């Protein structure tokens, strides 16, 4: 199994070159916000390990919000971020990237403050890495190549069934399975279909993963006595904050929202970038860290096959701290419209949403961290829209496929690779077609 990883390069933009950067980023698109997969700066589709990529100017609209706490906003640099979700390890990918698109990357990075003509691309990217505090992958180990191969498999089966509709119409499920297995075998032998077996799992990754799996709970257990001692104080403090933290959920500026909408709903999936400042103080910071560590642990060890709690529409998502953990960005790639995405969250995992995002300034009032909050649908949607940033360039390696499509195709393939299915399994498998 080839586990996925991710990268994010984060660098301040040279103010004098911001306009140039915007023009260059725009030149990579074929529709507003949607990358031309074969654009001349970074020909994304040539990287068969790259699931998603995004180039975005992190122009936080809300830095002034901290004034509600009587604090003066810091002046943050305007950042450029380049991030991607990839198969296998990050190091080799960055090298590949620098090797194949040196001039394109140089053209883009040269708009950043400290990138010079002589700068080594790989080293510069490494120096500007911004790792996530929490990361979610829809399906551990499903590589881009596998997604492509399985989509081709699905299409080939559908075409075959269309031609042979009469023959298959009344066949029992197990017979359908048997004949399709033969068909796929033939196609594979003829070289028309490829279903590459999983690569062996890197040993180093397995060890690290096992350590993470056990280490976190162990640390938690070790800290437990202290945590128990602190809990009453924590709760009292948290309740005080919850009752007094101001909400900033005004109606979002229509022109701003319309601008975001221009780049939305062009594919079956959408991208989402949201940014904001954390509420001041140790309690909020430690809550954020604690919750996101838990989310990260859960995403890494429990939610590895198609579901983040009840949500089945997220392909990749991550949370990244910025500026000494004063600010945070959330990135996600999901299916459907932003409206349905938010409804999904509110109606299915409102508690999780509250626990993470209620530590951001202005979030609708929560109770006991998990309750209420986003259940005030209108406030939540306006809060989120206001924190949403346009993504200048967004790439998806399989534009027509939803996470459910990917899951279906994987299940079809798994069923084909099983030598025999019992009656029940065969019925379920045939229902996928």
């Amino acid at each position: 199994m080839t586990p996925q990883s991710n990268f994010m390069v984060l660098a301040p933009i040279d103010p004098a070159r911001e306009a140039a950067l915007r023009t260059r980023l725009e030149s990579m698109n074929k529709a507003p916000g949607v990358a031309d997969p074969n654009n001349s700066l970074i020909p994304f589709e040539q990287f068969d390990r790259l699931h998603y990529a995004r180039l975005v100017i992190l122009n936080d609209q809300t830095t002034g919000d901290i004034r509600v706490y009587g604090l003066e906003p810091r002046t943050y640099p305007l950042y450029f971020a380049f991030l991607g979700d990839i198969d296998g390890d990050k190091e080799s990918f960055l090298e590949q990237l620098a090797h194949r698109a040196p001039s394109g990357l140089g053209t883009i990075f040269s708009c950043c403050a400290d990138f010079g003509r002589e700068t080594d691309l790989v080293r510069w990217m490494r120096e500007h890495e911004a790792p996530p505090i929490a990361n979610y992958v829809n399906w551990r180990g499903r590589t881009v190549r596998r997604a492509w191969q399985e989509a081709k498999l699905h299409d080939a089966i559908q075409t075959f069934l269309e031609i042979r509709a009469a023959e298959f119409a009344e066949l029992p499920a197990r017979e359908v399975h048997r004949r399709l297995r033969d068909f796929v075998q033939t196609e594979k032998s003829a070289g028309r279909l490829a279903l590459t077996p999983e690569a062996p799992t890197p040993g180093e990754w397995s060890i690290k993963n096992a350590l993470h799996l056990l280490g976190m709970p162990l640390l938690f257990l070790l800290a437990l006595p202290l945590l128990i001692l602190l809990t009453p104080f924590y709760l009292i403090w948290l309740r005080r904050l919850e009752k007094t933290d101001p909400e900033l959920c005004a109606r979002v500026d229509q022109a701003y929202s319309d601008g975001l909408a221009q780049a939305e709903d062009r594919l079956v999936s959408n991208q989402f970038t949201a940014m904001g400042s954390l509420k001041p103080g140790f309690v909020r910071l430690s809550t954020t860290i604690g919750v996101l560590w838990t989310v990260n642990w859960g995403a890494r060890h429990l939610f590895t096959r198609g579901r983040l709690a009840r949500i089945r529409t997220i392909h990749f998502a991550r949370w990244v701290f910025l500026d000494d953990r004063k600010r945070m960005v959330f990135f996600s790639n999901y299916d459907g419209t932003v409206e349905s995405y938010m409804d999904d969250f509110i109606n299915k995992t409102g508690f999780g949403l509250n626990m993470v995002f209620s530590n951001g300034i202005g979030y609708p009032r929560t109770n006991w961290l998990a309750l209420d909050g986003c259940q005030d649908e209108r406030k939540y949607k306006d809060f989120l829209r206001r924190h949403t940033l346009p993504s200048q360039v967004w790439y998806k390696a399989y534009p027509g496929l939803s996470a459910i499509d990917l899951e279906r195709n994987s299940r079809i393939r798994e069923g084909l690779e099983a030598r025999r299915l019992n009656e029940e399994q065969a019925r379920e498998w045939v229902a996928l077609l």
Partner: protein
Amino acid sequence: MSEVDLKDVQGLVRFGYGKMTEASYVLLRIRDAAAARAWLRAAPITSAVTMDPPPKVALQVAFTARGLAELGLPSSVIAAFSPEFITGMTEESRTRRLGDVGTNAPAQWAWGYAANVPHLVVMFFSEPRGLTSFIQSATGSYWSDAFEEMCWLKTADLDGIEPFGFADGISQPEIDWKRERDPTKAQIDYSNVVALGEFLLGYPNEYNKYTDRPLLDPDERSARLFPAEDAPEKKDLARNGTYLVLRDLRQDVRGFWQFVSREMGGSVAAGEKLATAMVGRTRAGDPLVPIEEKPIPGIGSEPEEVRKNRFTYARDPIGSACPFGAHIRRANPRNPDFPGRPASLLKRIVTMLGFGPRGFRDDLMSPVRFHRILRRGREYGPELLPENALSPAPPDDPARGLHFVCLNANISRQFEFLQNAWIVNTKFSGMTSESDPLLGTRTEVAGCPVTADFNQPRAGRLRRRVSALPQFVTVRGGAYFFLPSLRALRYFATLGR
């Protein structure tokens, strides 16, 4: 909690005016605001109060955002209505979401686009043979000074049957008028009772919250408006009002029956089987899944209601009785808050954390109670029976279709969500190559060229698939309106003074 003042609500929210079989809607532009307000002052707008004997005619009126501005409502007040209402149905990104692309694109509409956006719609309803004289009397003396008539949307009485020949308007949410249900309680089983605030502004919705709307500072003009329940110091301009979505859906009745008959070997009778699967009901209105033994809240106990409406899809998880893609299964999946009926709190928590049912098709949809609409549409065009639909269209074949009307308090979460995520979406319910068999546009989606299938799952067999469905319904016009309360109408009538 005060009761709803039905005298203040336009009757369409409560009644479909079924006995008033004649109806006509006129789209208007305001020519002279003062005259328009004078007409409004005198107009006999029908309220939702039950009358004895019942009225023989009814008059309803609703405004677009532009119409409210023309009438003289300040832009700062209009700005507090919902964004979808203000920007309108034809905003570019919205057309992608609503499927108003290709032949449905607003640029080709008969009305509703650019300069063709109406300011208001006036809806006339009447018992048989009374409409003409009612229109004459209700338009009255200010009418021609006040309005320019853009077009009349005439309707036909097809006796509860929509133009394709299927019984229509069967499933409607039951409004919780008395506000007895607590919407914050998790809904383990499907219920047809929906919070008042989903259909009327000024009341709590399914999240037990008040939908955003213009609240005014009290002054002489606003004195007769109700105070806002959630902000008693303010006057609630939108209370007892709601949003009205109007769309002209042209139906290709001949194309529909010719297609299904051809697919099924040529006969109308065989074609009807496929048509039934596409709709999800028989032509008489019976669902394709078995009736529930236990009652469903909000669905009556009369035998006809039970027969047609007491059902969910819980007992048809593989879609072999009613295809997942069937129109009525898309439009109302009848799903509760959780998959798998987690009755105990513990089970609910386990489900919430993502460890509930994990089948391929489990938990794919948002709970339906947040996405209900009240449908009040009327058909137009003469009846064309399926057996007559197979002959080619004469050169002067009249247009047939539906003036789709729905009411909801939150257009984006109700009408638009439903239209987008469930009707238009080619990925609905785990499918990938089909949109709504009746309403779908068959437009290619980037990366998935096939969107014109219709699949009928079968138990233990390969699904039956129909391919290359033509587009049967074309959008010819549409707009978002605000259907004000009677008090708000009187308020509008005093503007400009």
